[in-house]
């Protein structure tokens, strides 16, 4: 856990780089998350819905952002967070989770969050509010 008692605006969180997302990961996450929507795990279902292939659950990437946050601050200090899902994450993608402190008010910091693919596509964008002490 990082010492966050002296953070300042502009500081960045240690980025979290994710290994390529496999189909096995999508199947595991479907079971673990309870989201059994077949568009993420069944190629036939994806094609019948008009997409060429299955793609990752948005909440999988949000869980990666959760890992970014809880590796930086104890979870009990996370007050709130919000993300927008801005692009689909294809199979094989290697997302990177990043965070940057954008404001500090008293003992609360706001962290800007992104999940980005190697080609620059932003798949999730949002922010979190954490207690620094």
């Amino acid at each position, binding site marked *: 856990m990082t010492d966050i008692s002296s953070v300042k605006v502009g500081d960045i969180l240690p980025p979290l780089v*994710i*290994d390529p997302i496999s189909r096995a*990961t999508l199947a*595991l*996450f479907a*079971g*673990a*998350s*309870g*989201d*059994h*929507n077949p*568009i993420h795990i069944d190629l036939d279902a994806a094609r*019948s*819905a*008009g997409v060429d292939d299955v793609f990752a659950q*948005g*909440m*999988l990437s*949000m*869980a*990666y*952002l*959760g*890992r970014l*946050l*809880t*590796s930086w601050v104890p*979870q*009990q200090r*996370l*007050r*709130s*967070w*919000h*993300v*927008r*899902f801005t692009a689909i994450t294809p199979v094989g993608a290697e997302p990177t989770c990043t965070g940057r402190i954008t404001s500090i008010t008293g003992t609360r910091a706001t962290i800007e969050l992104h999940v980005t693919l190697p080609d620059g596509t932003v798949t999730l964008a949002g922010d979190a509010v954490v207690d620094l002490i």
Partner: protein
Amino acid sequence: MPVDVSAALAYRFEPLEVTVERGRLALFAKATGQTDPVYSDPGAAKAAGHRDLPVPPSFYFSLDLERPDPFRWMADLSIDLDRVLHGEQSFTYHAMAYAGDVLTVQSCLVDVAVKKAGALELLTRKSVVTRATELVAEAVSLIIVRNPEAGR
């Protein structure tokens, strides 16, 4: 077919009681590549000051999916799951929750907005998570229904 706004806002989700299971949280940790043992090893969790495995921040979204048919509300409102996108998600926390806790989820649709002459319908769904009488967390989802034929 457009969403019936008044029916959506009046839609009643039954309260759902969920017992958080250790094994499920450990699987969630595995599926998300979580390497921090606090989220999969009860001994590590206790050593870190937790009374059991913590419910991780985004898992609150999963609680409501424990219903036998979690997408039924969409079918009831004539929403085709294939046309649905998850647009936004937020969480607000009031207390930590742990494996073994019995949590209650109460959900409702709090807003329905129609954009682009019906080509997009934006449904805001709020879920409130409590443990007995204690407020634990709130989750808000923005669900986008695409009706490409409506905008033409």
